[in-house]
């Protein structure tokens, strides 16, 4: 059952990566990267339960914190950048 959850999470991460490469604006990419990070936390926990030894849950907690802080930092960086950051392809 945990294997099915892992496969579903990997499919979700692949779709988020496709959106991160395709995304027309900067914020689509940030949203896709945020989704990728959240699903990485869930994938770490699911792989732990799949192996039968949940030892890596601390790493999942730290990864959730790092993901949140990095997304907020990137948004603070681009929030006051003006209209140039919306249309650009980067």
């Amino acid at each position, binding site marked *: 059952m945990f294997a*099915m959850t892992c496969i579903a999470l990997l499919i979700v991460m692949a779709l988020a990566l496709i959106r991160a490469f395709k995304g027309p*604006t900067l914020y689509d990419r940030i*949203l896709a990267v945020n*989704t990728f990070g959240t699903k990485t936390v*869930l994938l770490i926990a*699911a792989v732990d339960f799949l192996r039968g030894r949940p030892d890596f849950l601390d790493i999942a907690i730290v990864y959730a914190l790092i993901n949140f802080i990095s997304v907020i930092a990137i948004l603070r960086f*681009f929030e006051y950048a003006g209209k140039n950051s919306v249309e650009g392809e980067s």
Partner: protein
Amino acid sequence: MELFLDILSWFFLASGSFFCLTGAVGLLRFPDFFSRIHATSLTDTLGAGLILTGMMLQAGWGLVLPKLLMILLLSFLAGTTASHAMAKAALKSGLKPLVNNEENQPGEKPSKP
């Protein structure tokens, strides 16, 4: 009792995976940034909550349960805050939402003369 807990946690894990998949399909196929953020943040919160609840039912009493509770609380708070900050930053930097009014439809002409 053991079988009941197993079936309940399987149900939670399967529905959480389903909600995560629908969120990803919405992220890939919706036409606008704000509709994408709507699909992703809602299903993110619900799917992560359901998957972590299923894992908690499998974990039993011990040190694993508080860790999973902490991940759940962190994911609730951080996910909603991050999506709110994303929508606010996108609005502030000039990204317009896709609105379905008469001037904005490219295919058909407005009916007013």
